[in-house]
């Protein structure tokens, strides 16, 4: 099967899926849903095929296809180079899981959904996947923008279509508006280049960017960065993210959090290293440092806010902010180091490798976690952890897979999260030893922040997993939960397997990174830098001694030791095995003894109080004397600084202003006439007299 026909095959699958789910819905909603998701699955598989074909094919090969002339003023085309192929690969991996998981979830989560809604969801899902895939494959600005907006629009439809709750509509609104603002920035950046080149295709834009003056170049970069940062959910532009992502159906949340944000990363890379990059010499100083800074900030703030969420999906959404931050740290470092005299290509390549590897890793485990949260949701219809608990005994598969994802996202060995963070650390170390003075200190500081992030993530997921799945069920929702249907488990299994594989044998994934890294940085490929000592060993040859770890060996060691310990434990133990209630100082244990999420996160809430502005109110009902307390009611919440300090203020000001204006406006006709007369008068004074 030829790779060249791949894109058209993909388009065909997604298109067919979209149409069929529209048309078949009249006949049978369920059937339409199934067909739509099957088509999506086919499209995703085709996507994997195309991307692998490009990534493992002839090095430096770019797959280009002209599109029919839709607009006379622009030549549209697809072009799949290493970078595009890699992101297409990531997208398709998660898309497979979502397509497997989707139908059963939608049926289980909203059995009463009308056929119209199901049609909309099937349609939107296919459009969403297709647009994401083709944003990365776009060979010109116009295709990029169309798919970009199509992506936003489709995901918006999915968000608002999930249920008729007003909350979703609001979340969708915020999402749509911010995305639109971002697109406006992108529009300006693209058009400024297109105006200079007179054409829209990337090759022409590249040429046009060749002879930009530094100021314009940097302005355009920051415009684009702003546009993509909104989509990527970088602090403080993240406000929409924790509202919109949880509102969508869970497999769509997985796609939005796991993949859609990455498309923004793709855009940043495309602009920084490809379109706007100067012909020779390093990137302007300000670019990389800005990206590094926002990356670090997003990582820390993202996880700190995630820590205080009790809504499972919202918590996961905030973690996406964190992980995007981690990716951006790598990207920023690569931008700083690229073509720096003194720095050989290896270091930049290492940083970029770390970023790209974390991209796929985050896609895998975040997808897995959202799917897990989804199956909890569709069985209990509760998103608030405080109302869950004890699910590990009721949905063991879901629990196990969720735990896997939790370990992975907490960057703990031997799973994939650790690998990419390790690489990021190595890159930071290299950067730190490369830069002397404050710059180096900044690099090291962001390394420390990265460590803090990892620790907090671990804490957060100890809470998320523990409170949701362990202990006793706190409500009847959790009491009567049952295991999710097999197709959903299968979808999660796929991503779980990816997490393990990418963690234990990352070297093989690194091979896929050769094309993008070498193509983007025109330096050594990823595997030349990272897996010089064989695919099973990750090594950084930054110094003669270098550093090397073998995740495979670590995993083997762990398994062997665990086996030994297990034998030790079973072997020495006489079969005395008693099951008794938990020790609660002799009282009869109930679910109320369990530590709640709020309680678990309280110490950190107090440690970082300066950031949270926590608000708590405790009302106690006493029986006459203050010493006998009958009931205590506790309510606490924390605020998102960006939200309260920026967004609420701005929206309030604007709407107040508009109200005031509107209230002032007169309905009297002589007022109208006065305005006309005044306009004429002013215009005559302004333009009437001849200007010398």
């Amino acid at each position: 099967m030829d790779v060249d026909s791949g894109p058209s095959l993909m388009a065909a699958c997604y298109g067919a899926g979209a149409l069929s789910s529209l048309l078949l819905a009249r006949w049978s909603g369920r059937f339409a849903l199934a067909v739509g998701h099957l088509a999506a699955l086919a499209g995703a598989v085709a996507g994997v095929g195309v991307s692998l074909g490009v990534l493992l094919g002839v090095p430096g090969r770019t797959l280009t296809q002209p599109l029919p002339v839709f607009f006379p003023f622009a030549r549209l085309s697809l072009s799949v180079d290493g970078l595009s192929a890699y992101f297409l690969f990531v997208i398709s991996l998660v898309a497979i899981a979502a397509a497997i998981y989707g139908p059963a979830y939608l049926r289980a989560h909203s059995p009463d959904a009308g056929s119209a809604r199901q049609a909309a969801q099937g349609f939107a899902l296919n459009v969403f996947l297709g647009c994401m895939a083709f944003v990365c494959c776009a060979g010109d600005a116009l295709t990029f923008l169309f798919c970009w907006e199509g992506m936003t629009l489709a995901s918006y439809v999915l968000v608002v279509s999930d249920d008729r709750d007003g909350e979703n509509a609001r979340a969708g609104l915020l999402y749509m508006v911010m995305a639109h603002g971002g697109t406006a920035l992108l529009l300006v950046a693209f058009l400024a280049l297109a105006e200079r080149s007179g054409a829209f295709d990337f090759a022409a834009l590249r040429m046009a960017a060749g002879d930009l003056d530094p100021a314009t170049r940097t302005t355009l970069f920051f415009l684009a960065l702003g546009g993509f940062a909104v989509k990527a959910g970088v602090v403080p532009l993240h406000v929409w993210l924790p509202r919109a992502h949880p509102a969508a159906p869970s497999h769509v949340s997985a796609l939005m959090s796991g993949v859609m944000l990455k498309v923004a990363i793709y855009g940043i890379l495309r602009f920084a290293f490809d379109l706007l990059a100067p012909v020779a010499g390093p990137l302007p100083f300000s670019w990389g440092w800005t990206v590094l800074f926002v990356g670090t900030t997003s990582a820390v703030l993202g996880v700190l806010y995630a820590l205080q969420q009790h809504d499972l999906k919202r918590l996961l959404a905030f973690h996406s902010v964190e992980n995007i931050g981690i990716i951006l740290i790598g990207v920023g470092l690569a931008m700083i180091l690229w073509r720096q005299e003194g720095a050989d290509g290896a270091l930049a390549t290492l940083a970029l490798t770390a970023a790209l590897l974390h991209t796929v890793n985050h896609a895998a485990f975040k997808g897995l976690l959202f799917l897990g949260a989804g199956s909890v949701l569709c069985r209990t219809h509760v998103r608030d952890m405080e109302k869950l608990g004890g699910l590990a005994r009721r949905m063991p598969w879901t629990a196990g897979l969720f735990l896997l994802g939790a370990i992975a996202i907490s960057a703990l060995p031997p799973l994939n999260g650790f690998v990419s963070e390790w690489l990021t650390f190595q890159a930071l170390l290299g950067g730190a030893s490369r830069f002397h003075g404050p710059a180096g200190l900044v690099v090291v500081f962001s390394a420390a922040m990265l460590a803090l992030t990892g620790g907090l993530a671990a804490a957060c997921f100890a809470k998320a997993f523990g409170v949701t799945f362990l202990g006793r069920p706190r409500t009847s929702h959790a009491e009567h939960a049952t295991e999710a249907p097999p197709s959903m488990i299968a979808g999660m299994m796929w991503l779980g397997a990816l997490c393990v594989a990418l963690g234990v044998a990352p070297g093989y994934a690194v091979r896929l990174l050769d094309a993008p890294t070498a193509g983007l940085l025109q330096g050594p490929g990823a595997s030349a830098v990272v897996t010089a000592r064989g695919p099973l060993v990750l090594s950084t040859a930054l110094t003669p001694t270098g550093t090397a770890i073998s995740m495979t060996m670590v995993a083997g060691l762990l398994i062997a030791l665990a086996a030994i310990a297990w034998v030790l434990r079973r072997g020495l133990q006489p079969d005395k095995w008693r099951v008794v209630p938990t020790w609660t100082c002799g009282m009869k244990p109930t679910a109320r003894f369990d530590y709640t999420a709020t309680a678990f996160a309280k110490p950190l809430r107090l440690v970082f109080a300066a950031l949270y502005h926590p608000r708590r109110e405790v009302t106690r009902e006493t029986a006459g004397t203050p010493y006998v307390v009958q009931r205590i009611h506790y309510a606490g919440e924390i605020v998102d600084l960006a939200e309260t300090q920026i967004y609420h203020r701005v929206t309030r000001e604007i709407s107040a202003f508009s109200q005031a204006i509107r209230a002032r406006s007169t309905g009297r006709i002589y007022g109208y006439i006065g305005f006309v007369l005044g306009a004429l008068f002013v215009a005559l004074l302004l333009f009437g007299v001849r200007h010398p």
Partner: protein
Amino acid sequence: MVHTIIDDLGALLLFTMILIVAAGQIYRAIYAVAAQSLLIAIAGGVLARATGNVDLWVIAGVTLVVKATLLPWVLHWVVKRMNVRREVEPVIPVAATLALAVVIVVVSFQLSASLGPVRQAITGNALPVGITLTLTGVLVMATRKTALTQMVGLFASENGIFFTAMAVTRGMPLIIEIGVILDVILAALVMTIMVLRVRSTVDADIADLDRLKG
């Protein structure tokens, strides 16, 4: 020769305009606008004799019939038929309106002075006078509350346009002028109907309605 006559007529037109602005009673405004139209007709005649352009005679005649007699009569009839209050109700004091009118005069003369020689295009002071009449007419509409005064203002400002149009060398093409006048009549008709309609349905002056806003 013609220039001087046109200029004198222009001065008279300005005077009638001031009368309209200053008119405290609706009847006076109507009479003033009728007089103004009469002056326009005279100007048409003068220009016709000067240039020997037959069209201008026709136009002068039509103006005399329609604008100097018919429309004022209609307005008069309306005012009598529906017993509206005779006083015009100024939005801002008449003195202030007059001051604004003066500003308009100054600006429009200044403007046409800045144009340099337009003699070969437009006769005499017709341009500044025309601008003044047009703007002041609209000014009257913008500063009066009753519908009829606004119609008066409208006719006044159209007189200004006509004056300039006539003063243009060789006048405007006849057919156009006729069309314009027909449109004016039609508009006046529709407006009158509306005024009467509102007066009959809700007993209010149509120009006073201000439910629609914002």
